[in-house]
């Protein structure tokens, strides 16, 4: 992979300390430094923390930029850091390039009070179902999504199942007897 950093230990490198974790991130930093609020390079992967408002601009740029060509959105994955954490939620976008075969992760962090983020379905149409799943399981609301409703849990389910404060067994058992 072209963008693999030399350091493969488990410690994250903040962008202020490392000179350039990878040529791709360095080039992106030159072009649009306002999109990069943090860079984590660990375990052979690069994560860029993007401010929430810039995610659509960053994604559409990365899709067509000749340096990166991230035309394939592999996955959108939400995560709940914990009830006590602030910011609590994060949304990870896993990008892949079918021509250059390199990968990148973009991360958006959201606090509990304001779980809105713009939808990237205009950039990759596959984001549709991934964002529905993240909304269903975490309650992250994607503004601009054409059809944001539950996908895995039943339509009338209350609560968001993968949040850390939702109990594993749910609230009541299902029984007709």
């Amino acid at each position, binding site marked *: 992979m072209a963008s693999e950093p030399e350091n493969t230990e488990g410690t994250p490198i903040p962008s202020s300390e490392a000179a350039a974790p990878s040529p791709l991130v360095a080039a992106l930093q030159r072009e649009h430094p306002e999109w990069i609020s943090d860079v984590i390079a660990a375990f052979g992967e690069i994560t860029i923390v993007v401010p929430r408002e810039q995610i659509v601009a960053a994604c559409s740029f990365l899709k067509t930029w000749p340096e990166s060509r991230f035309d394939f959105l592999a996955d959108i994955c939400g995560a709940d850091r914990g009830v006590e954490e602030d910011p609590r939620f994060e949304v*990870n976008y896993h990008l892949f390039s079918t021509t250059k075969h390199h990968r990148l992760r973009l991360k958006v962090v959201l606090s509990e009070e304001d779980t809105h983020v713009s939808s990237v379905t205009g950039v990759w149409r596959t984001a549709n179902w991934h964002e529905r799943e993240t909304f269903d399981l975490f309650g992250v609301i994607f503004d601009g999504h054409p059809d944001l409703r539950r996908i895995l849990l039943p339509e009338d389910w209350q609560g968001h199942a993968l949040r850390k404060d939702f109990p594993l067994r749910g609230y009541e058992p299902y029984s007709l007897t």
Partner: protein
Amino acid sequence: MSSAPNIPPQFEIVDRPLDTQMTISMGPQHPSTHGVLRLELVLDGEMVIKTTPDIGYLHTGMEKLFEYKKYQQGIVITDRMDYLNPLGNNLAYCMAAEKLLGLEIPERAQTIRVLMCELQRIASHLVWLGTHALDIGAMTVFFYCFREREKILNLIEAASGGRLTPSYFRIGGLMMDLPAGFERRCKQFLEAFPAAVDEFHTLLSGNRIFQKRTQGIGRISAEDAIDWGLSGPCLRGSGVNLDIRRANPYCSYENYDFEVPTEPDGDVWARYMVRMREMKESHKISAQALSRLKPGPVKADAPKVVLPDREAMKSHMDALIHHFLIVAEGFDVPAGEVYQPIEASKGELGVYIRSDGGSKPSRVHFRGPSFVNLSALPVMAEGEMVADVVAIIGSLDIVLGEIDR
């Protein structure tokens, strides 16, 4: 019509299209939806105007279960996800955990992993072929495919103890080494297999009915396929040469000699041909892996993560202590997150693990290829007839366990 038929006067010929559309629900209990999938079809007569998949009928909450189980306990759950390719799920999860831990897997373990994964890929494609042909109407192929599959299941059962839910891989290597006689039986199977694939071709590929039901149906272009996130044989059937085993190699796949079959058309027939050719390629890789097996350890050298052998545990005190600690408390995994993609039989299976430093993960997410492939069904099925929808679902090779998790 030039000559009007002889219709009695009390009837009249109505020659305007119906201006009402019909919405019907196909599933969730349906023989051809390959699981509990519900499709809402908006039909104009026989033609599909719009289709909306409704999933979630098999949602098992597996991703939440992972957060309550130690890493090695999670391997058992991964079997039940894509239940036609359980060794692939095991592999992806174990590799993601090994990436976090920074473990070095010995060569024999990697070779056996490749061998078992390719055998599993053949088994998964055999189920696909059997059920796809059954839906289209060819029932004989179902029995032929399952006959071949029984041989593979016997091999997997000999190695791991489970036919359908083997959980053979562990974080750090394998559960245990291959049993005696495995290589001989595997070689026997591999020698007889190409003749079986040719037999399937004689049953289906030259059949005019099968060709008419699959050629030109469910087309998707390469740009659409990439935009909708298709992967695996669905993407390669549209002409895009992308295989994770070549793009981001893992388990020393770069040392094996195999081709990546692609077909340019993007219809059901193209996906069928890609998978048939893939079975032969998997057979090639398995034969190479089998010939490369050399004696050696099958578990990584990490006593705090990998369970010791039973004999060592019973005779050495430190092995006993490690065994106890690993089973009772688990091992601490460094904090961080990884995304490990592999080429499962259905496409790019990606595992995202986020660890907070404890013995249980904080978030595990499986990017199931069938989940994404199914989201492209409305694009493929628009304008096709209802019977073609059945063929298209079959060609997507979906497994609801992976979609709903």
